[in-house]
């Protein structure tokens, strides 16, 4: 309807209903946009954190455990073979060589997945350097054992190697602590915080809270039972809630991964103590044999290090396929199920449905003044 202004110029007056419809539509579109940004930000934040844990921290932690076990086993094999085998055909043994080679591969894995930055890289470098010295000491022990008049010196080199191995494993403990600390940070960071869901849930609730009264308003104002596009938009909003809540599952999976890692640590600790005990016992017997007088303190020290592990450590059951389970949980935590692509599509759909829901009514109330 065209009316004249007091100054005589023509003017177009927008009806109250149309203005209300326009404001409602704008509010719904804005709420949709905000909800999309919030949902995407949180979901991607959680997904990236879980991805980093699954791709780096967890494999690095498991590889450190494997390296420790391989090294302890290699040392136990060297002690066993060098002290038991013959003069001509003796040596640290095939098992020693296999375990040392395995340890090298595990250390390479740790280096590839190291999540602990420069500090971690430096620890790996130090361990690799000391491993060179360690294998050199085993080589000297081997050479001395092959000399019929120098078996005591062979035992002395073995003892030096054992001492250095303790240093190496202690360094690996430090490295492990750094990797676990990164995993803890990933689990406890802002994206996986228990209050973070509010960041995406609130905008979606606002959107839902706007859609429902809009539906009621339109039904009353235009005497129609339902606005189908807006109903579908409401359903799509529920879909966004469902999809984004998958981030909660990822956060829970990360918690599970941390518990898995703790279980693996406990069981591996028990295994390590067992292997260490075997090697220390063997070495103590050898020192006793090679040095029956004047080595009491050394033998006592070795026996003390071979003492039975604490009940808690020895009783810790080794969960079957614990490492695989940990990796599976980590992979599940990192699996986004392509939600990051579906969320924008849903938001786009909601926007289109909102526009469609209002289109007919706005056309109907074009420029009526009531």
């Amino acid at each position, binding site marked *: 309807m065209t009316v004249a202004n007091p100054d005589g110029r023509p003017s177009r007056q927008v009806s109250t209903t149309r203005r209300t419809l326009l404001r409602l539509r704008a509010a719904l579109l804005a709420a949709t946009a905000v909800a999309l940004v919030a949902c995407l930000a949180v979901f991607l934040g959680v997904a990236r954190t879980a991805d980093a844990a699954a791709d780096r921290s967890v494999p690095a932690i498991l590889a450190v455990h494997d390296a420790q076990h391989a090294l302890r086993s290699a040392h136990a094999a060297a002690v066993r073979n060098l002290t038991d085998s013959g003069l001509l055909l003796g040596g640290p043994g095939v098992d020693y060589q296999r375990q040392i080679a395995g340890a090298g591969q595990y250390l390479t894995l740790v280096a590839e997945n190291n999540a602990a930055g420069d500090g971690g*890289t*430096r620890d790996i*470098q*130090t361990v*690799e*350097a*000391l491993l*060179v*010295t*360690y294998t*050199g*000491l085993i080589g*000297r022990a081997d050479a001395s054992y092959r000399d019929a*008049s*120098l078996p*005591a*010196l062979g*035992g*002395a*080199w073995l*003892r*030096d*190697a054992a*001492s*250095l191995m303790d*240093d190496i494993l202690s360094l690996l403990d430090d490295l492990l602590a750094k990797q676990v600390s990164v995993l803890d940070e990933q689990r406890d960071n802002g994206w996986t915080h228990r209050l973070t869901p509010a960041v995406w849930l609130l905008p979606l609730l606002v959107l839902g809270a706007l859609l429902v009264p809009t539906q009621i308003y339109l039904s009353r104002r235009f005497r129609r039972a339902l606005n189908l596009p807006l109903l579908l938009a409401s359903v799509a909003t529920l879909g966004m809630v469902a999809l984004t809540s998958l981030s909660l599952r990822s956060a829970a999976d990360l918690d599970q991964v941390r518990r898995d890692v703790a279980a693996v640590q406990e069981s591996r600790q028990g295994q390590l103590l067992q292997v260490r005990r075997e090697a220390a016992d063997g070495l103590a017997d050898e*020192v006793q044999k*090679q*040095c029956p*007088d*004047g*080595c009491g*303190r*050394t033998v006592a020290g070795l026996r003390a290090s071979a003492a039975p592990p604490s009940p808690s450590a020895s009783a810790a059951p080794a969960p079957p396929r614990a490492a695989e389970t940990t990796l599976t949980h980590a992979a599940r935590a990192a699996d986004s199920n392509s939600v990051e692509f579906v969320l924008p599509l849903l938001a786009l759909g909601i926007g289109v449905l909102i526009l469609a829901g209002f289109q007919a009514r706005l056309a109907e109330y074009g420029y009526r003044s009531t």
Partner: protein
Amino acid sequence: MRHRRRRSWTTLALVTVLLAGTGLSGCSGDEPTGEVTILASWTGAERAAFDAVLRGFEAETGIHVDYQGHRDVSQVLQAGIERGRPPDVAVLPRLNDVQRYVNEDQLRPLDEIVEGDAGAAAQVIRLARKTEPVGPQRAYAVAVATHLKSIFWYEPSALSAVGPRQPPATWAELVTRSRGVTAGGRVPWCLGMSSPPVSGWPGTDWIEDILLHQSGQAAYERWTRGELSWRTGPVRDAWVAWGDLLGVSSSPGTARASLFTTWADAGSGLLTAPPGCYLDHQASFVLRTYRDAMPDGGGPVDFFPTPPVGPSETSSLQEVSDDVAALFRDTGPARELMAYLASEPAQRIWRESSDELFFSRRAQSDDYADPVVARVARRLGTGTLCRDGSDLLPTAVATAFERAVLVYLQDPGRLDALLAELDSVRRSVPPAEYMDLGCEPAAPPTN
């Protein structure tokens, strides 16, 4: 009017830019901040004492120090260099490593860093690159800690219980005392060769000390330069004198036990009841072991210097070892740290944090609470200081030397074969790997 206002805004902007520029240049030029990495061999209590020095540096400069400590420092450093990730500064226990890295052009010279500190002159180690292209002599390392090695430790009441009240004053008396203790069914020597991963060095210290005090400074210096045969003459004489003193052939049990015993465990035998041993040839750093063995803060240990072994007057000669700091990456923070480690304040903090168990080539006041410690410090300030021979020898020779000591202790009959092999290793090493450093007069203490 508008034109004038625009001009005043321009002036204000220029002044602001100038002030900001001045501030920035002030920050970057006078107060370097950042991080410096340092690798050394100290762990445990020694590391704690050194940490105090580093904290002092951090407080003074605002530079953060990242310390890495491991007893196999040479191997860890080598691995870092091979991977292109050396520490900024490394404290090396073996001087020959410095020569090797100078030859490989891995070290940065320190002349500008140390030239302003006259007190540090005795600590500075000047070397020349000996491989092509041969370079001029420059300052490449600073001795940050020094240890006295030509000494024998004993517990006065225990030693006097098995012989005369006074400690041995001549080599003959020392041999007699040792044999007397053995004859009484006791163990005279606190002998421990184990020190993973470089076991055997306590034995090389013995032989070097005997060589120095038996054949004198000139022979010692020729030996460290690779000019002296091992098979005959002074070097062989030193081995024989050592074996004779220890009685390795007559009491093989003690020698064999030393292969499995660490030098620290061996030394603590001085203070057990009854004594596990009566005499300990060990460097001044063993004082920490004695203090640890006596929880009340120190036992009544004392020492006497290595007496002349032959007819020559060699009592003014003293074997010492140095921990030397060298610069691998020439960054501002690293240069600051090098200068600080050589400085008097750093050495003062170190002395305090180590309960005075820190000694240096730098002239220091001799007001020590412990009279034994004061005597050690005084000896470092008198006579002629000769660097640890195996620290000066190329790695291949030094490693063979350490192994030879261990083989000799188990099978003394192989001495000539061992010396022949050592000679062959000596000849196989290129001359550029030997060091030219000789003995030097000590810096007298200040009061």
